Protein backbone atom coordinates (compact mmCIF):
# COMPACT_ATOMS: atom_id res chain seq x y z
CA UNK A 1 0.00 0.00 0.00
CA UNK A 2 1.38 3.40 -0.92
CA UNK A 3 1.40 6.27 1.54
CA UNK A 4 -1.66 7.82 -0.14
CA UNK A 5 -3.68 4.64 0.06
CA UNK A 6 -2.77 4.29 3.74
CA UNK A 7 -3.83 7.89 4.43
CA UNK A 8 -7.08 7.40 2.56
CA UNK A 9 -8.02 4.29 4.53
CA UNK A 10 -6.88 5.31 8.01
CA UNK A 11 -7.65 9.06 7.86
CA UNK A 12 -10.11 9.59 5.03
CA UNK A 13 -12.63 6.91 6.05
CA UNK A 14 -12.82 7.90 9.77
CA UNK A 15 -13.20 11.58 8.90
CA UNK A 16 -15.82 10.77 6.29
CA UNK A 17 -17.79 8.67 8.80
CA UNK A 18 -17.65 11.42 11.44
CA UNK A 19 -18.77 14.03 8.89
CA UNK A 20 -21.72 11.83 7.93
CA UNK A 21 -22.83 11.43 11.58
CA UNK A 22 -22.41 15.16 12.18
CA UNK A 23 -24.55 15.99 9.15
CA UNK A 24 -27.28 13.56 10.22
CA UNK A 25 -27.34 14.80 13.83
CA UNK A 26 -26.89 18.57 13.34
CA UNK A 27 -28.53 19.05 9.94
CA UNK A 28 -32.24 19.01 10.88
CA UNK A 29 -31.71 21.10 14.03
CA UNK A 30 -30.17 24.04 12.23
CA UNK A 31 -32.99 24.15 9.68
CA UNK A 32 -35.72 24.21 12.37
CA UNK A 33 -37.22 27.42 13.76
CA UNK A 34 -35.29 28.25 16.94
CA UNK A 35 -37.26 27.46 20.08
CA UNK A 36 -38.44 30.33 22.25
CA UNK A 37 -37.18 30.38 25.81
CA UNK A 38 -38.73 32.77 28.32
CA UNK A 39 -36.43 35.74 28.81
CA UNK A 40 -34.75 35.44 25.44
CA UNK A 41 -35.21 38.14 22.83
CA UNK A 42 -37.85 37.77 20.12
CA UNK A 43 -36.07 38.56 16.88
CA UNK A 44 -38.79 37.89 14.38
CA UNK A 45 -40.83 40.21 12.26
CA UNK A 46 -44.18 40.97 13.86
CA UNK A 47 -47.03 38.91 12.44
CA UNK A 48 -50.72 39.63 12.62
CA UNK A 49 -53.13 36.85 11.70
CA UNK A 50 -56.80 36.97 10.83
CA UNK A 51 -59.09 33.96 10.33
CA UNK A 52 -59.94 32.64 6.90
CA UNK A 53 -63.03 34.25 5.41
CA UNK A 54 -66.02 31.95 5.79
CA UNK A 55 -66.70 31.62 2.07
CA UNK A 56 -64.05 31.07 -0.53
CA UNK A 57 -66.30 32.09 -3.39
CA UNK A 58 -65.70 35.66 -4.59
CA UNK A 59 -68.50 38.11 -3.87
CA UNK A 60 -68.90 39.02 -7.57
CA UNK A 61 -69.85 35.45 -8.51
CA UNK A 62 -72.30 35.28 -5.59
CA UNK A 63 -73.93 38.51 -6.70
CA UNK A 64 -74.37 37.09 -10.18
CA UNK A 65 -76.62 34.41 -8.66
CA UNK A 66 -78.48 36.97 -6.60
CA UNK A 67 -77.39 35.43 -3.33
CA UNK A 68 -78.29 37.34 -0.18
CA UNK A 69 -75.03 36.18 1.33
CA UNK A 70 -73.09 38.39 -1.04
CA UNK A 71 -74.73 41.49 0.37
CA UNK A 72 -74.03 40.34 3.92
CA UNK A 73 -70.47 39.66 3.09
CA UNK A 74 -69.97 43.05 1.53
CA UNK A 75 -71.29 44.54 4.74
CA UNK A 76 -69.02 42.36 6.79
CA UNK A 77 -65.86 43.03 4.86
CA UNK A 78 -66.36 46.65 4.03
CA UNK A 79 -65.88 49.41 6.54
CA UNK A 80 -67.85 48.94 9.72
CA UNK A 81 -70.40 51.69 10.24
CA UNK A 82 -69.98 51.97 13.99
CA UNK A 83 -66.61 50.50 14.85
CA UNK A 84 -66.26 49.09 18.35
CA UNK A 85 -63.71 50.75 20.57
CA UNK A 86 -61.50 48.80 22.93
CA UNK A 87 -63.31 48.55 26.22
CA UNK A 88 -62.36 45.30 27.89
CA UNK A 89 -60.00 42.38 28.02
CA UNK A 90 -57.07 41.34 30.15
CA UNK A 91 -53.34 41.78 30.47
CA UNK A 92 -50.68 39.39 31.58
CA UNK A 93 -46.95 39.02 32.06
CA UNK A 94 -44.79 35.97 32.38
Amino acid at each position, binding site marked *: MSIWQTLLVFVGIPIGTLALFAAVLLGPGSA*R*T*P*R*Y*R*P*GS*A*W*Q*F*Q*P*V*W*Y*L*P*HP*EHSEPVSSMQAHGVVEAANRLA*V*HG*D*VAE*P*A*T*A*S*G*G*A*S*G*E*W
Partner: protein
Amino acid sequence: MSGEAIERVKDVPRAAAIIADRPFSPVQLSRIDEALTLASRETGLTFSVYVGELPGNARTTAEEMFNKLAAQHPAPVLLAVSPGQRKLEIVTGGESARRIPNRIGGLAALAMRASFTNGDITGGIVNGLRQLADAAGTA
Protein backbone atom coordinates in the same frame (compact mmCIF):
# COMPACT_ATOMS: atom_id res chain seq x y z
CA MET B 1 -49.90 24.54 3.49
CA SER B 2 -52.96 26.14 5.01
CA GLY B 3 -50.86 28.50 7.14
CA GLU B 4 -49.89 30.51 4.12
CA ALA B 5 -53.48 31.42 3.48
CA ILE B 6 -53.68 33.41 6.69
CA GLU B 7 -53.92 37.08 5.93
CA ARG B 8 -50.89 39.12 6.95
CA VAL B 9 -51.53 42.70 7.89
CA LYS B 10 -48.73 44.93 6.67
CA ASP B 11 -48.81 48.06 8.79
CA VAL B 12 -47.64 46.60 12.06
CA PRO B 13 -44.85 48.04 14.19
CA ARG B 14 -41.46 46.54 13.41
CA ALA B 15 -39.01 45.11 15.92
CA ALA B 16 -35.56 46.70 16.08
CA ALA B 17 -33.44 43.67 15.32
CA ILE B 18 -34.91 41.11 12.98
CA ILE B 19 -32.99 37.97 12.19
CA ALA B 20 -35.65 35.68 10.81
CA ASP B 21 -38.92 36.15 9.00
CA ARG B 22 -40.88 33.21 10.31
CA PRO B 23 -41.47 32.79 14.00
CA PHE B 24 -43.53 29.62 13.49
CA SER B 25 -42.93 26.36 11.70
CA PRO B 26 -45.54 25.27 9.14
CA VAL B 27 -47.01 22.80 11.65
CA GLN B 28 -47.32 25.45 14.36
CA LEU B 29 -48.78 27.90 11.87
CA SER B 30 -51.46 25.45 10.80
CA ARG B 31 -52.40 24.83 14.47
CA ILE B 32 -52.84 28.56 15.02
CA ASP B 33 -54.69 28.87 11.73
CA GLU B 34 -57.11 26.09 12.65
CA ALA B 35 -57.78 27.44 16.15
CA LEU B 36 -58.26 30.96 14.80
CA THR B 37 -60.65 29.93 12.05
CA LEU B 38 -62.67 27.56 14.27
CA ALA B 39 -62.97 30.13 17.06
CA SER B 40 -64.17 32.79 14.63
CA ARG B 41 -66.58 30.48 12.83
CA GLU B 42 -68.14 29.13 16.03
CA THR B 43 -68.67 32.48 17.65
CA GLY B 44 -69.15 34.89 14.77
CA LEU B 45 -66.53 37.16 16.33
CA THR B 46 -63.35 38.06 14.44
CA PHE B 47 -60.47 36.65 16.43
CA SER B 48 -57.08 38.03 15.56
CA VAL B 49 -53.61 37.08 16.79
CA TYR B 50 -50.63 39.42 16.85
CA VAL B 51 -47.18 38.18 17.79
CA GLY B 52 -44.42 40.75 17.99
CA GLU B 53 -43.15 43.76 19.85
CA LEU B 54 -45.69 46.11 21.48
CA PRO B 55 -43.78 49.40 21.53
CA GLY B 56 -44.46 52.00 24.21
CA ASN B 57 -47.22 51.15 26.63
CA ALA B 58 -48.21 47.61 25.64
CA ARG B 59 -51.87 48.07 26.59
CA THR B 60 -52.23 51.34 24.68
CA THR B 61 -50.53 49.91 21.59
CA ALA B 62 -52.76 46.84 21.69
CA GLU B 63 -55.87 49.01 22.02
CA GLU B 64 -54.78 51.13 19.05
CA MET B 65 -54.33 47.95 17.03
CA PHE B 66 -57.77 46.80 18.15
CA ASN B 67 -59.34 50.05 16.95
CA LYS B 68 -57.66 49.62 13.56
CA LEU B 69 -59.06 46.11 13.39
CA ALA B 70 -62.53 47.26 14.48
CA ALA B 71 -62.68 49.70 11.57
CA GLN B 72 -62.64 46.79 9.12
CA HIS B 73 -64.10 43.83 10.98
CA PRO B 74 -67.20 43.60 13.15
CA ALA B 75 -66.88 42.35 16.73
CA PRO B 76 -63.12 41.79 16.83
CA VAL B 77 -61.10 40.18 19.61
CA LEU B 78 -57.37 40.85 19.64
CA LEU B 79 -54.79 38.60 21.27
CA ALA B 80 -51.48 40.45 21.26
CA VAL B 81 -48.42 38.57 22.46
CA SER B 82 -44.97 40.08 22.84
CA PRO B 83 -42.58 37.26 23.74
CA GLY B 84 -39.61 39.66 23.86
CA GLN B 85 -41.29 41.83 26.51
CA ARG B 86 -43.07 38.82 28.09
CA LYS B 87 -46.38 40.59 27.79
CA LEU B 88 -49.77 39.55 26.56
CA GLU B 89 -52.86 41.63 25.99
CA ILE B 90 -56.38 40.48 25.25
CA VAL B 91 -58.53 43.33 23.92
CA THR B 92 -62.29 43.21 23.46
CA GLY B 93 -64.81 45.89 22.64
CA GLY B 94 -68.39 46.35 21.54
CA GLU B 95 -70.14 43.03 21.02
CA SER B 96 -67.06 40.98 21.89
CA ALA B 97 -66.80 42.80 25.23
CA ARG B 98 -70.42 41.91 25.98
CA ARG B 99 -69.90 38.26 25.16
CA ILE B 100 -66.46 37.84 26.75
CA PRO B 101 -66.48 39.26 30.28
CA ASN B 102 -63.15 40.52 31.61
CA ARG B 103 -63.14 37.71 34.17
CA ILE B 104 -63.07 35.15 31.32
CA GLY B 105 -60.38 37.17 29.55
CA GLY B 106 -58.32 37.03 32.73
CA LEU B 107 -58.71 33.26 32.93
CA ALA B 108 -57.65 32.87 29.29
CA ALA B 109 -54.65 35.13 29.94
CA LEU B 110 -53.72 32.92 32.90
CA ALA B 111 -53.88 29.77 30.76
CA MET B 112 -51.80 31.44 28.06
CA ARG B 113 -49.21 32.54 30.60
CA ALA B 114 -48.81 28.96 31.80
CA SER B 115 -47.89 27.83 28.27
CA PHE B 116 -45.68 30.83 27.57
CA THR B 117 -43.73 30.23 30.78
CA ASN B 118 -42.86 26.81 29.37
CA GLY B 119 -41.73 28.41 26.12
CA ASP B 120 -44.77 27.12 24.20
CA ILE B 121 -46.00 30.17 22.29
CA THR B 122 -48.15 28.19 19.86
CA GLY B 123 -49.82 26.15 22.60
CA GLY B 124 -50.60 29.26 24.59
CA ILE B 125 -52.22 31.00 21.65
CA VAL B 126 -54.29 27.93 20.75
CA ASN B 127 -55.45 27.44 24.37
CA GLY B 128 -56.32 31.11 24.74
CA LEU B 129 -58.36 31.09 21.54
CA ARG B 130 -60.26 27.97 22.64
CA GLN B 131 -61.09 29.36 26.05
CA LEU B 132 -62.30 32.68 24.68
CA ALA B 133 -64.36 30.97 21.98
CA ASP B 134 -65.94 28.59 24.50
CA ALA B 135 -66.86 31.51 26.73
CA ALA B 136 -68.31 33.57 23.89
CA GLY B 137 -70.59 30.72 22.80
CA THR B 138 -72.23 30.41 19.39
CA ALA B 139 -73.55 33.42 17.56
